[in-house]
């Protein structure tokens, strides 16, 4: 918003961590180990993301975790150059995207290991985990290996 260094001390510069619900703990435990986990409803076979307490399709409690392939396609993206919170300034520029997972659900992520101008809608990507701290790793995506 204004001169970055002059303002920085007023702001919370710590990295925000996901605000977790009890039923999503397993997702973050998986991410810590480099696994992208999705919920699967054993009642109606729905693939569920983001994680829910009950299946949002049929309200069944009979839900299990399955590891996803980590393959996805870019649905859309936007590369940020300015006007993000001070706590994200150090990352600029960075690209936020929605990717459609091979298993169906769409998720928000970042696209990394790729120049912003090379990112395209429809691009094939694969998951790579970005460690925030000992508890949290965020699922980022990078161009899929050929």
């Amino acid at each position, binding site marked *: *918003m*204004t001169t970055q260094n002059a*303002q920085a001390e*007023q*702001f*919370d510069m710590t*990295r*925000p*961590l*996901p*605000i*977790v*619900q009890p039923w*999503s703990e397993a997702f973050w435990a998986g991410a810590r180990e480099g696994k992208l986990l999705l919920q699967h409803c054993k009642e109606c076979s729905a693939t569920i993301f*983001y994680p829910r307490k009950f299946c949002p399709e049929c309200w069944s409690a009979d839900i299990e975790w399955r590891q996803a392939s980590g393959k996805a396609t870019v*649905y*859309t*993206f*936007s*590369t*940020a*150059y*300015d*006007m*993000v*919170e*001070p706590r*994200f300034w150090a*990352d600029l520029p*960075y690209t*936020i*995207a*929605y990717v459609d997972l091979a298993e169906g659900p*769409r*998720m*928000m*992520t*970042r696209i990394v290991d790729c120049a*912003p101008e090379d990112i395209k*809608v429809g691009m094939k990507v694969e998951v790579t985990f970005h460690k*925030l701290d000992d508890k*949290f790793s*965020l699922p980022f995506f990078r161009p899929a290996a050929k």
Partner: protein
Amino acid sequence: MGANKIAIIGIGEVPTRTMPERSRWDIIYDTCMEAVRDSGLSKNDIGAVISTSPQAQPQLTAELAFGKLPEELGLENCKDTCVVNAGGAGTSNCLRLAEQYIASGVADAVLVHHVTVHSTIPVPDLIAFFAKAGVDLQWEYPFGSTYNIIMGLMANRYMHETGCTPLQMASVVTALRSWASRDPHSIFYGKAVPSPEKVLESSLLNTPLHKRESNILADGGCAMVVVSAERAKKMGKPAAYKLGESVRYFSATPMMRNMEKMVYGLRDTAKEAIAQAGITSSDVDIWNVYLAYPLAHPIMAEALEIAPFGQGGQYFLEGRMSFGGDIPWSTIGDAPGRGHTGSGVSAAVYVETARQLMGKAGERQVPDCAYVYQNTSGGSGFNNIATIWGRDPK
């Protein structure tokens, strides 16, 4: 409950500006008193007060929610008051609740109002509020998403699907500002209207959004007096009659959003509201669209079937939605033209709808304005409420 039961008979508004010298209550006094005077009623005719929840202003929200306004303004016959929050769709729900109060006999006349003063909120608090509002704190926020980025994601997909160009997108700002430059209540009143090329010269915030395609935070407030359609008709004053309404919920987290569901929802709510009003799309004199960001306007123009698929941006570039064009559109210039007052822009759009139907819109007055389509939407687009308002009762 039918949609044709209420009318707006009085409006009050302060110009949207940066005005830290004015307290929120200062603005409340002026807007509410102006609306009551404009209605021809007296303060003791007001039977209820409903506030559109002011975003990022917790102290004011608490004061309003706990009943300070009727006491402050001496509304002796006020029977109830409350705050309604659905983000940018809040004012639509205030009007619905006003309709219920009137139908159930709680009140004969209801005062609906909004105020926001951004300029005295500390910058870190403002940034923190707008960074987190409408963004999922587990599945979006940690990645560094923002409101601007969400709009960028939607616009990039739309441009991919339709071939809409950056220049066409930028021309939406030109159209909105052409109205705003002629609106004494706009922060851009009397200011030069930027060409699409000039919009694109401004710095890139996040693809494809340029600085001039985003919003300026501002201070403002407005108020309306609502009575039954029957009573408005008897009073015989210029009024805005609610003739039709339709709504769809989409999803809270944009991540989960199905773009098709949203576009079909925009289309279907318009069709249903227009049908309920007993008119056709060609009867609509103004498309008073509220979307907060210019990037979503071409999508709306196509969803409303005003522009063919993929041509929304081109329509704006040709100036058809600009002041003087053949499709009067967002005649206060939406948030990019008015200045962003949180949930207040949608309230201001209702006031403008009423102003146009009352024939009081000055230079922006659309001649012989009989029917206005108006929408509101909350959060980062969780719903769409489409309404049709008329100069005359059904």
